[in-house]
């Protein structure tokens, strides 16, 4: 309780609760990276709040030795908005999943993104409902056989990144549970960003949708399927001996080109501030194209809680310090003797 902040370590962020995810769940790796990155941020532990909804991922706050709120299905984004608005100095994190964040909580998610509060959202996308034991989610791919889709999923899935970009998010990134360094880097970038940061983390559910991201995370396939984005760098992927690039075709469609036969100038350069390029990247579909990983969009826009605070400041300077007696008698009054 002293004012001095001792240097914190990963252990300081581990709560006394037993972690109860299934063995092999991708959530373990994500939790470990978050706990690893937290001490670097130099934010007092008591000023950090993790808010979640319902689902496997939403157990997350119990395992973080910070303030935490495990709320109701889909509403973490709304609860976090109220918290951040009334306590702008707090570091507020939302942990959600593809069902919690994109299905039942889809509305709150898009409105948080458009308002641009300085909140960090981690969306664990495993393309399945885990906690309810294996129904398809709004990101499950067409044809997936699940308990609730014995003949295969018929509904078209959301692309999480496209959705976030479409909601005018100011920071959108994608990473993979198994790419620990990359995940850490995305967390750092998210914290550094002023405004809502949205990270989609592709996360394996070993029980109900094992291997959904095998192409992106598997030892043999990850190199040719990961398009790792770096601001200002060309869109290159693949192994050293089979280097590939993403270029813009004459019809404005994306093209995969072999670097053996293509000059590097013809490959697109990544630009986190280019909104059109962000959409372009989010529409690259497997298996024809690699999966973009990294910061897809990072741009500045006024931060909602700051605008709200500025209005309150303006109200104070325009209307003066609160005076209830003046307020009560502000309309037409009359006196009875």
């Amino acid at each position, binding site marked *: *309780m002293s004012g001095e902040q001792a240097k914190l370590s990963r252990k300081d962020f581990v*709560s006394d*609760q037993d972690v109860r995810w299934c063995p092999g769940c991708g959530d373990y790796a994500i939790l470990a990276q978050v706990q690893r990155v937290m001490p670097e941020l130099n934010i*007092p*532990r*008591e*000023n*950090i*709040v993790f*808010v979640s909804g*319902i689902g496997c991922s939403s157990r997350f*706050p*119990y395992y*973080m*030795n*910070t*303030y*935490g*709120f*495990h*709320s*109701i299905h889909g*509403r973490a984004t*709304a*609860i*976090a*908005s*109220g*918290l*951040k*608005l*009334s*306590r702008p*100095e*707090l570091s507020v994190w939302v942990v959600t999943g593809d069902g919690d964040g994109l299905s039942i909580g889809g*509305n*709150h998610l898009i*409105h948080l993104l458009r308002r641009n509060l300085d909140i960090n959202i981690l969306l664990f996308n495993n393309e399945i409902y885990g906690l309810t034991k294996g129904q398809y989610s709004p990101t499950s791919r067409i044809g997936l056989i699940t308990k609730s889709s014995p003949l295969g999923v018929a509904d078209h899935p959301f692309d999480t990144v496209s959705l976030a970009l479409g909601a005018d998010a100011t920071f959108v990134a994608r990473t993979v549970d198994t790419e620990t360094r990359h995940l850490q880097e995305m967390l750092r970038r998210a914290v550094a960003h002023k405004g809502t940061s949205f990270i989609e983390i592709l996360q394996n559910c070993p029980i109900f949708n094992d291997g959904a991201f095998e192409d992106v995370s598997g030892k043999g396939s990850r190199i040719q399927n990961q398009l790792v984005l770096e601001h200002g760098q060309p869109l290159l992927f693949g192994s050293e001996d089979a280097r590939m690039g993403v270029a813009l075709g004459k019809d404005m469609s994306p093209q995969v080109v072999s670097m053996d036969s293509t000059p590097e100038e013809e490959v697109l350069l990544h630009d986190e501030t280019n909104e059109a390029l962000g959409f372009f990247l989010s529409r690259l579909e497997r298996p024809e194209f690699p999966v973009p990983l990294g910061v897809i969009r990072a741009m500045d826009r006024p931060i909602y809680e700051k605008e*709200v605070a500025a*209005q*309150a400041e303006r*109200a*104070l300077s*325009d*209307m*003066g*310090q*609160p005076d*209830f*007696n003046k*307020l*009560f*008698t502000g*309309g*037409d*009054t*009359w*006196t*009875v*003797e």
Partner: protein
Amino acid sequence: MAEVPSETTVREKPVEQVDAVVIRFAGDSGDGMQLTGTQFTNESAIAGNDIATLPDYPAEIRAPAGTLAGVSGFQVNFSQARVFTPGDRPDVLVVMNPAAFSVNIADLRDGGILVADSDAFTLSNIRKAGMDGDPLADASLTKRVRVFAVPLTRMTTDSIKDMGLPNKTMVRCKNFFALGLCSWMFNRPIEQTLTWIGAKFAKSPALVEANTRVFKAGWNFGETTEVFVHTYEVKPADIEPGTYTNMTGNRALALGLMAAASKAGKSMFFGSYPITPASDILHELAAHKNFDVTTFQAEDEIAAVCAAIGASFGGALGVTASSGPGIALKGEAIGLAVMTELPLVIVNVQRGGPSTGLPTKTEQADLMQALYGRNGESPLAIVAPATPVECFDMAFEAVHVALKYMVPVMILSDGYLANGAQPWKIPDYDELPDISVRYWKGDLGFHPYLRNEDTLARPWVIPGTPGFEHRIGGLEKDYDSGDISYDPVNHERMTRVRAEKIERVNEDLDPPRVEGSELGELLMVGWGSTYGALAQATEELNAEGLATGHLHLRWLNPLPVEELKRIFARYKTIVVPELNMGQLVRILRERLLVDAIPVSRVQGQPFKVGELKARVKAIVEEGR
């Protein structure tokens, strides 16, 4: 017809003294009847009368002009005695078109005054209102009431035609002619209205002049023409000394919430989604951002309450407001506030239901929803203001209870209280009680579900407090550690504690108070906005020799069960009049094992005193 004089002339006509007058203005929803009625009410309040109002407007902002669906009305009762209701039947009815006539004429009492804009009674308008011939000329009407057919539209345009305004703009001023005429008829003070016109239309000097001229023309028309032989005067009421202002329920609620948050030393966070008839609370609060009030217009009702809960978690006073349909959507989140034991104030400005129902009409049918409209055993405290001005006091109490006991509190207002106006004796802010909350100060053995011995409240330790990092949530918690627990016995224990917290609120509440006879034949038990009708009926029944008591409950959860039993035992018959199919009556029958009898009305309108009296008398007769 006499020429309309250009300025007020002083020509006295005889003044007839009357005790009370009920006047109803009715017209197309575009005719400005709400504005006219509100301003006439202000004049009456300034004249020192006690007042009660009933705005009655359609859900459609602009239904097709001249149709029955588009009729908007505003009724005000002003009196030299205490006024409890807007009155059953108007003494004076002002109609701006045949549709307004058709909808309202049956309510006008026999011998009453009808003022009609005769210019609007064209054949096509009359047909649009579903009638054949000119109803104003109908002998059965002129025999029953005094009809004043006034060419109101033409005189309006005549009085400002030299201003060069478009015809449509000129015609739109006609409500000020009606206001001017009625102000003359009832000797209302007009200075304030002239000032108000100047302020209201400040952006357009032409409209200030036009409306002022039309208003004066209306006044002069009454004074100079031979149409009206005398005016009426209602002497000032005997009102408790003090400074007063007109107050609607919604505004009183907003001010009460603000004052309470301030007296608790808390920032107020108000999450809301627009809905009739609750939106005015949002508008009012949004206008006072310098009072440490944050308003958040959320994307939906669920986000509105969830944001308020998030703010409460952060240490602010979280408040949300809606009407029945919105409260239904908030149900799950309210349960979260019950479970996490966070302070939260939920305002339900009730309207006619189910579903979209009657958005602009009043009803009291959400009591069961407030008590039971959530999954699981999910108790919260419920309070219902009885009058528009009481919304201030009840909001203040609600905040106090929410903070002291760490519970959600629901305030049940309704459309009638929300929009009804009443003189409010302005309190001195400095004399309002301090309701500040003390944070938990210990530091050994903390867990988030430790309890205060008296209130059973858990400690409200907020993020930013070093050394007390903890997690709360919607899963059941262990009584002793605050950790997640699925233990069966623990769940029952926690369920009982959550219920007991609400019961303990009784400690803070005023004991129930009977008005009228302390014992006797009949006890009327009511809640919420029916107060006025029940109070009036009680006075009249006692005057007629039927010993009648009136018990109006403010807090509906918890109930002071033992005290109620003692009170109920003093009467032969217990009736429970409600604007629903009988909700409080079921609670009372169940909790008190008493043969209370419901008196239901579900017409989107308040009780009429006459009808209510007749019905309770019939019940008493039957019991004899």
